[in-house]
Structures are given as C-alpha cells and as structure tokens.
C-alpha cells in the first residue's frame, strides 16, 4: 500500500512535468474556474435578493427588482463565456499532453532494443499507446474540468454561506463528511469486485483472441461447440462479477445523494427556525438552500473523479513504463559512418544468447571476403535467424565482435551499417500505402524508371501492371489482398531498387513457386555479383551456387565448405542433401 502510494506520487510528478509546458493554459483554466465559480455562486444571492423584493401583494419593489434582473443577466452571460473558455483551455491542455505522450511513446518505440519488442506482444504495446493514453485523457480532462471547479465550488459556497449565516453553515459543514465517508467505504468495498471483473474480462479476451483470431482452424476442426462451451463458462462468471461490481459501485451516487438531502433538510430546519426568530430573511434562506444544493454536488463528482483519476494514473503508469524503458545502446559520439563498403565481414569469437544462461551461439568465427556468397543451412532453431539479427545489429553480441570492412559494427552508425545491407526476411512485411511507396521505401527519391526497372528485375512488374491502379494501387496493412508470393516479390523489388553492397536473404523465396523462383534467382545473381551475400534457405538449389556453405547446428558451425566439398565429406550436409529425394 505504502509502495503504491509512493509510486502514485511519482506518477503524478511525471504527469505534472508534462503539463508544465502548458502552464499558461493551466493558469487560465484555474483563473476562469475561479471566476466562473464565484459568478455562479453570486447568482443565487441575486435571486435571493430578487425574491426579497417581492414580499407580498402590493409590496413589490419593481424598480429594485429590475436592476437586479439586469445584474443577473450580465452575470450569467459572463459566466457562460468564461465557462466556455475554461473548457477550451482544459481541452487544450489535455489533448496537448496526450499528443505529446503518444509522440514520446512512438519515438521511444523507434529506439527500443528489438529484444523488448520481440518479447512483448504487439497488442500490449499498441494498447499502451492507444487505449491507455485514451483512458488517461478521459481521466485528465475530467480531473481538470470537475476537480478544479468542484474544489472551488466547495470553498466558494462555504465562504458565501458563512457570510450569510454562520449557524446554518456549521450545520452543513458537520453533515457533509458523512457523504465522503460513505463514498470511501463503497469505493473500498468495490475495489475487490472490480479487480475480479477485470481479471475475468482479461481471461475472456484471451479466449476470444485465440478462438476468433484462429476461427478458420476452429471451424475446420469442428471445435465450435467446445469453444462456445468454454466461452459461456467464462461469460457466466463475468456476468456475475460484473453485476456485483456495477451494482455496488453504483450505490455511491444514491447514498451520497441521500446525505445531500439530509444536508438540505438540515439547512431547511435551522434556516427556517432562524427565520422565525427573525435572524434571517426569506431571500437569504432561499440563497442558503440553493447553496446547500450546490455545495454537496461537487462531493459526488469528486468521488467519481477520484476513481476516474486513479484509473487514469494506472494507465499513465503503463505508458510511463514504456516511455522509460531502457533504449538500445546509443551510438558513441565518435561512431564512424560506413562508406564505400567493400563488404568484408568477419565474426570473431561471437557468443550470443537471448536468455541469459541459455547460450545459443558460442565461439562463432567466420571470415567473409568481398563479394562472396555465404549460404547458411541447418535445422530449425540452429541460430540462422539469430545470425542475421546480429549482422544487422538488431541485437548486440554478448561476447566477441563482428567487423565490417575491419571496423567493429558497434563503432559504426546504425544507419550506415544497415543501409549497407539489403534484407529480405521470411516474414514479408509491407506497409499500408501504395505499391510505389512500398517499393521506394529505401530510396524515396527513385525515379519512375528506376522503380520499374527494379520491379521488372524481380518479376513483380507483371502482376503490378495487372492490378487496378498499377503502381498506385493501395494495399492495406500487411499487404492484405496480395498473395504471399506477390508480397515477397515486392519485398525483393524494394531491395533491388537500393542496390546495397551487402545482402541478407532469409528464406526469402520459401513461398514463391519454383518457376518464379528461378527467375528471381537469376535477378538476384545479377544483384549479388560483387556483393557479399548471406542466404538462409531450406532449398538446396538456392544454396548450391554459394561460395561457401555454413552448416549450423545448435549455434555452432559444424561444417563449412562448398557444395562439392561438403558432399564428399559425407557429413550432416550430405545427409540433408540426400534426404531431399528420398521416399
């Protein structure tokens, strides 16, 4: 409990830091809130005065009444105006802060180490940036609009009431804490229920995510009934918990309202008796009653705001977690930019593991001279993909070093290292946008001819031409609408256009039919000429022409040589090769 409190303080501090930038609007908002509250409170006094002018038949002071009415109109117009400006200020602060937070989070994502992103589900990170920030915005806005005015209203009404009549005010002050007490009691009791509700809801979402996300498999295996059964079980539990949580939390409002009516009655009794005793007039009593109403209202709101704010803080915490995550190791100030890459790569005693204590790659040594073609083969999980992660510096080696053209890649700028490589991954990824944007991703200033040449070289031109708008066809996120093979052709075109000095191909051709593959192969061969290339593929035909084949197993290179040499060795490679046409 203590810890969470300290934590919350920290979070509030962080939020305030981000609000600080907009201090001017905060200042305006507080100022206008104060003015609005004072004016709003002044109206009942005026109305009370007005009622005092209309005592009884024949005793109405029209002149006095007229001037009061004019006053009232001026005051309400001013109030409305200030209220509006205040809302705009609050909106401005909230949405600015929210925008800044999102932008901060996004910037962070760009410099997070890949290990963080690989270890967290996209859904989780996305929901931090979207849903949590949204919830936070709601809370913050509510806090600004209601907390300020609420507190001000309470203070203001107290002041006004004291100025009218001390006894009555004391009655009010004595009864109100009951309302706070009731609200706090209910909040405490319902906390457990809310927790249960959100846990069960999480469970349900997980099931929905799996069953609907993989609906085709579910249907193919006739699992619908069982899925429904599992769903209903959770659904029923959720219904129970939701009912409890919703009902008990909704008790706050009636209960506090009841306390309010007690306050109102208290004011009524004491006020009326004072009036009988002549210590107060009817107009003043009417103002007091109206204040009693206004005074208690913010208490309800504030209890609501506080739960909302707590929720908002919880969300803020999740956002800050992301924002404060340790970024990838920054580049040293003397980082060298790789220029005129020759493409000599050497790995010296490289050791790496994703999970501490479970070494994956150990003592890996490799020398690749300029323009050589290296094929990497081996069973799944042998470390092929990891090697790519290390070459591109998506991950840093734990021990040893990787050198490009004799320079440790950790001393290079990431930008120059990565633009030295052209990469086609197993998971084809395209962004939502036009085909053109996707191909020209690595070279936005490419000319039309260059782009088409690249597309032709990778045999993508044909199918692109057949699309509705050719190169300007919009594709949705992750290339929806295109076949896997077409997506891969686009990814290849993307690299083809950049003409990078080094290449990394990770099973890039695994879902392109062999006919197309042969054509691509030819194109690649042209591209690979004079360029250092790493190819990871299961297909032996892809590998046979490599200058050197690395056979990896369990993070080690167990065999190395060209196709012929390896076959003669009759080792693991030849076993792999022979099995290709075995029955």
């Amino acid at each position, binding site marked *: 409990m203590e810890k969470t409190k300290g934590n919350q303080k920290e979070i509030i501090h962080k939020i305030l830091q981000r609000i600080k930038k907009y201090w001017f609007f905060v200042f305006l908002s507080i100022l206008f809130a104060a003015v609005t509250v004072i004016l709003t409170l002044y109206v009942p006094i005026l109305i009370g005065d007005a009622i005092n002018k209309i005592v009884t038949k024949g005793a109405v002071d029209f002149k006095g009444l007229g001037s009061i009415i004019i006053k009232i109109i001026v005051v309400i117009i001013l109030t*409305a105006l200030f209220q509006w400006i205040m809302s705009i200020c609050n909106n401005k602060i909230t949405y600015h802060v929210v925008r800044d937070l999102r932008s901060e989070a996004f910037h962070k994502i760009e410099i997070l180490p890949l290990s963080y992103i690989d270890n967290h589900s996209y859904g989780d990170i996305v929901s931090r940036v979207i849903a949590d920030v949204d919830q936070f915005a709601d809370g913050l806005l509510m806090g600004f609009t209601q907390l300020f005015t609420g507190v001000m209203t309470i203070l203001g009404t107290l002041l006004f009431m004291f100025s009218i009549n001390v006894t009555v005010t004391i009655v009010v002050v004595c009864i109100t804490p009951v309302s706070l007490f009731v609200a706090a009691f209910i909040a405490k009791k319902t906390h457990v229920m809310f927790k249960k509700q959100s846990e069960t809801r999480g469970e349900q979402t997980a099931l929905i995510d799996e069953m609907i996300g993989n609906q085709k498999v579910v249907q193919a295996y006739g699992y619908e009934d069982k899925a429904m059964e599992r769903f209903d079980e959770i659904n029923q539990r959720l219904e129970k918990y939701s009912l409890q949580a919703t009902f008990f939390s909704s008790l706050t409002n009636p209960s506090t309202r009841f306390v309010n009516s007690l306050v109102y009655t208290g004011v009524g009794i004491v006020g009326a008796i004072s009036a009988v005793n002549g210590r107060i007039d009817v107009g003043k009593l009417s103002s007091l009653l109206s204040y009693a109403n206004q005074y208690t209202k913010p208490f309800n709101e504030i209890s609501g705001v506080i739960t909302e704010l707590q929720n908002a803080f919880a969300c803020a915490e999740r956002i800050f977690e992301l924002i404060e995550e340790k970024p990838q190791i920054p580049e040293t100030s003397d980082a060298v930019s790789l220029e005129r890459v020759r493409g000599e790569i050497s790995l010296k005693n490289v050791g790496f593991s994703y999970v501490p204590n479970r070494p994956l790659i150990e003592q890996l040594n490799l020398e690749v001279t300029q323009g050589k073609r290296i094929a990497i083969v081996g069973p799944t999980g042998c470390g092929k993909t990891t090697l790519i992660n290390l070459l591109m510096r998506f991950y840093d080696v734990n021990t040893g070093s990787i050198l490009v053209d004799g320079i440790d890649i950790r001393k290079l700028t990431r930008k120059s290292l990565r633009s030295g490589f052209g990469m086609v991954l197993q998971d084809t990824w395209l962004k939502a946008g036009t085909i053109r944007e996707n191909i020209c991703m690595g070279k936005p200033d490419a000319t039309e001819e260059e782009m088409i040449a690249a597309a032709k070289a990778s045999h993508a031109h044909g199918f692109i031409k057949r699309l509705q708008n050719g190169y300007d066809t919009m594709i949705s996120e992750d290339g929806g609408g295109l076949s896997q093979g077409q997506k891969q052709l686009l990814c290849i075109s993307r690299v083809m256009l950049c003409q990078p000095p080094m290449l990394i191909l990770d099973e890039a051709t695994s879902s392109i039919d062999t006919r197309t593959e042969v054509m691509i192969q030819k194109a690649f061969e042209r591209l690979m000429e004079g360029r250092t290339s790493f190819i990871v593929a299961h297909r032996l035909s892809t590998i046979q022409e490599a200058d050197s084949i690395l056979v990896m197993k369990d993070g080690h290179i167990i065999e190395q040589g060209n196709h012929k040499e390896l076959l003669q060795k009759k080792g693991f490679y030849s076993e792999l090769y022979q099995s290709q046409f075995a029955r």
Partner: protein
Amino acid sequence: MKKLLIYLKEYRKESILGPLFKLLEASFELLVPLVMAAVIDTGIKNGDKSYIIRMCLYMIALGIIGLICSITAQYYAAKAAVGFAAKLKHALFSHIQKLSFTKMDQLGTSTLITRMTSDINQVQNGVNLVLRLFLRSPFVVFGAMVMAFSINVKAALIFVVTIPLLSVVVFGVMLGSMPLFKRVQAGLDQVLLATRQNLTGIRVIRAFNKEESEVENFEEKNNTLYKRQMFAGRISALMNPITYVIVNIAITALLYSGALQVDSGILTQGEVWALVNYMSQILVELVKLANLIITVTKALACANRIQQIFEMEPNFVEADSNVSLKDIKGARVEFEHVSLKYQMAGAESLSDISFCAKPGQTIGIIGGTGSGKSSLVNLIPRFYDITKGKILINGKAIEEYSVKELRSKIGIVMQKAVLFSGTIRDNLKFGNLNASEEEMEEALSISQSKEFVDQKEGKLDAIIAQGGKNLSGGQKQRLSIARALVRKPEILILDDSASALDYATDAKLRKAIREMKEQPTVFLVSQRASSILHSDQILVLDDGILVGIGTHEELLENCSVYQEIYYSQQSQKK
C-alpha cells in the same frame, strides 16, 4: 441498435422496473421544493416551529424513500445491462462461429475481436446509463414543468417556452458533435494503424533506416487526431454554457412575471421561490444529460458495428438430408468440372477442374504462386462453396452432407500453423476430444514430433504459449499435423504444411503417413516437386487451370509446366 434490443427481452422486467423506480425517485425529489415552499409560506410566516420540524421530517422521509427507490433502480439497471451484454456476447460469439471463410476474409479477424470485446463493453455501459439516467432527465424536466403548472399556469408558460428551446440546443449539439466524434474515432484508428504497423515491420523499418519518416508519419496522424479532438471538444463544450444562459434567463423571466403576480396577490413569495427552484433543477439535469450524451453516442456507434456482424449471414445453407458419413471407411473424392470464383474477385480462381481420388490414394498438387492450389483443397471441407460443377464424396455431392459431419472426417493442416495456448495434449485433443493416450502418441510419432515433445518438460503436458510462441516454426507445423492425425481422418489435407521442415524430416513425415494403418485419402500441396514426386496422381495447376494430371513419369513426358517446375528444381543439382 434496434435489433440488438431483443437480447434485452429476457430482462424485460428489469429494464422496465429499473427506469420506473428511477422515476419514482425523481418524483419524490420533485416534491421537495413544494414542501420547502410550504415551510417558507406557512411555517416562517406564522412562526410555527413545530410545523417546520414536521415538514422537515417529511423531507427526510422523502429522502429515505428516494434512496430505496434509487438503489432498487440501480440494481435492476445493472442486472439488465450486464445480462444483456452477456447474452449479446454469447450470440455474437456463436454467430461468428458460423460465418463463412469468405466473410472472414472480407472482415479480417482483428476487427471481429475488437467488436467482440471493446464494442460490447461500450454498449453495456450505454445500456446501463440509459436505463439509469436517460429516462430520468427528461422526466425531471417535464415533471418540473407539470409542477410549475400546478402552482401557476401563467408562470408555467415560461417553462413551456424554455423546455423546447433547451431540447433544440441539447439535440443540436448532440447531433452536431456526433459526426465529429466519429471522425475523432477514425483519427484514433489511424494512429493505431501507424503504431501497429511500426511494430510489425520494425525490422524492415530499421533495416531501411526509415525511423525518421515513420515518426513524421505518426506525428502527422497524431496531429490530425489532436485537431479533430479540439474541434469536437469545442463544439460539445458549448452545451453547458448555452443551457446555463437559457435556464437563467428563464429564471429572471420567472422572477419578473412572479413579481407581477405577487403584486396582484395571485402568487405568494414561497411559490415564486418554488418555481425558481424547479427551473434550477432542470439545469442540474441538463448538465448530467450532457455528460451522458458522449457515452451514449459512443455506445450507439459501437452497437452499429456489432449489428453489422449480425447482418452477415453464413453463406452456405445446411442440407437437412439424412445422408450420413458416419460409418464410412475410406473416401473417394471426385471433382466434376469444378469452378470457383471468390466473391468480389473479377476472374475465376479455379476453372473446370475434374479428377478422381480413390480411397487411400495420395494426390500431389503443385503449381505456381496463386495458381489455385490452396483454393482447390479448401473446397473439400466446404470452406468456400464452388460456383460451378460438383464435388462428390463417395458418390454424393458434398452439399448433401452436414457440414459438421463432413469436416469431422477431414484433417486439414493449413499453410500457417496455428496452435492454441494450453498444453500439447490440449492442442492434440482440439482435433479429437476423445483421443486416447495411444492415439496421441501415434499421431506424434507419425508427424515426427515425438522426439521434441519427449524432450519437453512434462512431455504431453508441456505448456504452449499463445500462438505457439515458444515453439519453432517447424515444431508448430509438425504439431498441427499431429492434431489433424489425431482425428483419424478419412481425408488428410496438407496444404504446404511442411514448408518449415528440412528435407530429411519432410521425407520421414511423408514416409510415415504412407505407412499409416488406415490409409486416408491424402491431398498434398507443395512447392517442392520432391515432396509430391511419389504421389499416386499429381495435379498440376497453372492460373486456376488443371494443365496436367498423372504420375510423375507421365507428367515428365507430357506436361510442360511440370517439366519446367521439376527441372528448375533439379537443374542446379546436376
């Protein structure tokens, strides 16, 4: 929204009683100013303290009754809303289970998931609020007017003018801001897309050094969202000030006309006070209403999104024939001039395909990307319905079988291996709930998964993370093949489902399948000629057309497409 309301039907009692008790509470609340007016007019004027105390006790009694009514109302509202959401979820979940693959392709599963979760939650909140408050506010407003009439008709006319004016403002702002909020939501979708995309493509983005332009793109979307939020906020922020002005001007009007009537002795001072009080109550309600409107607007939008899903009918019609597949051993699959055109697609994806697979045969299917291999095998379990021709299983058209029974005889392994969170055992049982230990072991060994499963801690009880994250691609594929085998299918479809396996394992797998005791009819889709080389029949597809059919030797002689594929894979070997 309307159509969704049928799920509220079961809670008719609750959804009537809830608002009713709320109205009772509101009525008691409306009585309070009257009692107070009596205190002012009679109690204070006559200096009758005992009368004042008696009246105040009445007020407390009103408060207590109000509290009870209100709690009852809250309970019924909560029960109806929560129950409604549960029913709705159940219905939606079961509806989605019946959607055809065509619809799912159109929609995409991620939006189905959001609709199932966050949209329904929004609707639940909306229903709860509506039951609790939405009726209350108009009731209080009109109640206040009625009470005003009971006091004085002339003064009450001011209410008659004010209330429509207020309604115009409230609904005007509401209608005006609704599309704005929709735009905000759309803006948020864009920000979400940008974020998601950045995560899924992080390797490519970093490889191409596109971090900066991604940030720029994000900032632009983020800014658009900000602007839309500000604009929508500015409009909806108008509501409170405007209503405030209207109500208070009405109050001054009341004061003035009240003054006239008091002067001529028609009204009393206390009654004027009560009239003013009723007007203020209206204001309080309107402020509450304004806060509600955003929630309700959102709920309505969400309800529409859910409604859309319900409106999608499952594509195929279930046959109610008595043709049963239950005891069939061995399946003969015949295609007669089958064509398939996907909805929305321009051209046919498969045209005029005819062949016959005899029980126990292995049919290899090969062809280029987009040649229709997957489409062809997807027709057998009726994932998509054919547009022309006939598919027969053991002589009967597949439409004559019940879809469920048909699929129960088929084990299909898709291109993308999907596993579920749970144990390995759970995943195997996914295919066949009644699978015995031996059957599972057998399936594991045929699918070449036994070795790595045995290495796992807990073996069959080893935990698989969501989406099979803790397994390699090849392991996932092998387990999903095991899952299909556990069903002891009569038809086994492997849709390029060994692509992540190395050649040695792939060969062992095929060998094991061939040696199965009860040999199913196997459809083997592959990119590798080597994988289908030994099939009893090989179908060669090119752009949706069956360009060759026969054994490996036959095709090598007479099918140019096959020759090209085969030699392209062989050439570099020799």
